[in-house]
């Protein structure tokens, strides 16, 4: 039976399996997973194909940041200047730039090792009032400490739609946290949250301040709710899996077990109990 399966597993399937493993790597561990996948697949060509498809997806979804030239980056090998028509208009750039400054300030305060960027998502060619455009705030923080058997990452992506007609800003945030602890075991946290908010359309500086305040507020609230989830674990959530002590609140009376089974037999014989 095993031989049949082996014969049936096409190269394409093998590649898909390799990609699945790579994409499910915990934060900061794709290099280690890659080494094992390469050994298990035992086909360098196939592995390279899978890796070349999986790495970019993983890097983007984990918001891996690229170190810019001047420092040595190991992710990015080529950087080119953006072309003029790839950049947002001066009008949009004014909002983007103001927001970038505010978000940098916030991330610097709130994240010990955070990186952030603000991009124009839509409407980069809008030249002035009268049209909608969208900015995207990306925040990422990662910590890898294999010596402490722990890795983790925080990712948040906020899209801000500048609605010209109703003079409102609509914010949508996607927050995601992952952590892996692996000293003599394998335990992983995977948490996701989405939130929404609105504020009024103001000047570029005032909008930037309002947006970064909203983001700060939601992210702080989210951390607080995660902490609450943790503190609920021992007495509520975990209890539904296994209690700390039996319902009797004393250790199980193993020494009386013979009696137990005797009582059971009697109960059964007399037809009492359920």
């Amino acid at each position, binding site marked *: 039976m095993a031989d049949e399966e082996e014969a049936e597993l096409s190269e394409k*399937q093998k590649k898909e399996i390799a990609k699945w493993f790579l994409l499910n790597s915990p934060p900061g561990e794709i290099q*280690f997973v890659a080494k094992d996948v390469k050994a298990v697949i035992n086909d360098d060509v196939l592995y390279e194909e899978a890796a070349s498809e999986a790495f970019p997806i993983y890097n983007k979804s984990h918001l891996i940041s690229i170190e810019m030239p001047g420092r040595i980056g190991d992710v990015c090998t080529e950087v080119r200047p953006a072309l003029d028509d790839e950049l947002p208009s001066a009008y949009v750039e004014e909002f983007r730039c103001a927001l970038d400054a505010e978000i940098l300030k916030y991330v610097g305060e709130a994240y010990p090792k955070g990186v952030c960027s603000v991009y124009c998502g839509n409407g980069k060619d809008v030249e002035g009032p009268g049209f909608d455009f969208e900015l995207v705030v990306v925040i990422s923080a990662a910590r890898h400490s294999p010596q402490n058997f722990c890795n983790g990452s925080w990712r948040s992506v906020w899209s801000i739609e500048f609605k010209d007609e109703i003079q409102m800003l609509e914010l949508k945030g996607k927050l995601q946290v992952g952590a892996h602890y692996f000293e003599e075991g394998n335990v992983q946290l*995977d948490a996701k*949250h989405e939130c929404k908010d609105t504020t009024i359309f103001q000047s570029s500086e005032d909008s930037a301040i*309002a947006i970064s305040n909203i983001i700060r507020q939601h992210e702080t609230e989210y951390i607080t709710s995660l902490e609450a989830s943790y503190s609920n674990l*021992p007495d509520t959530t975990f209890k539904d*899996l296994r209690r700390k002590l039996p319902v009797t609140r004393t250790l199980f009376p193993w020494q009386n077990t013979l009696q137990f089974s005797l009582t059971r037999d009697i109960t059964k014989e007399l037809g009492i109990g359920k």
Partner: protein
Amino acid sequence: MEAAMGLMRRMPPKHTETSLSALLSLLPQHSSDLLSQVDQPLQVLCDMEYGKEFILCEYNRDADSYRSPWSNKYHPPLEDGSLPSLELRKLEVEANDIFAIYRDQYYEGGISSVYMWEDDNEGFVGCFLIKKDGSKTGQGRRGYLQEGAWDAIHVIEVGPEEEGTAHYRLTSTVMLSLTTDNESSGTFSLSGSIRRQMNMHLSTEEGHLCNMGRMIEEMESKLRNSLDQVYFGKTKEMLCTLRPPSEVVMRLPDS
């Protein structure tokens, strides 16, 4: 094989089944090693004769059938399926009865099965299994969990009796996953698996069952505690180093 085990240590525990079946299809030549070294979530069958469910594992399997601890019969039926000796079967029946009470007191539900067989050194081996679905659609009394699974596997090797004592070696694995989901905090999911060993030399005055039971109880409490305090605690610590919770939530001026 080493790389395969490396992958199992890194993949999310809630995807254990998928990871294992992927490895089995890539490495069919190692399938028996993989199946014996990788712990996977427990499966269940129903013993129709007793109307009770029992847990499947390598230790009650013969060919493609599994022996029920309730009727001592193989499902699907198997002629000449191996059975424990009469004496050991008696202990097995008793162990199943008592372990079911133990399980009910700690788990408030769930399924348990105990299997025993003779080993080659005049001793015997017992395998104690517990499976609990703690989700609110399952047997979660308090209804907090969207999804919640606990699988415990305890294999205990008992050496031959010498001068009223015996050596016990317990290897325990717990696999669990829990997910809560609500509007204000989104999806929060923790999953994990850990395995530990415990060796003890004990007097057999009170019987094997009593000794095995106490060791399992102690081990389960230790594992539960280290998952809760140490393992989950470490992921929380990580979270707080990534984005420390600030003391004061900045409020927006009403706009």
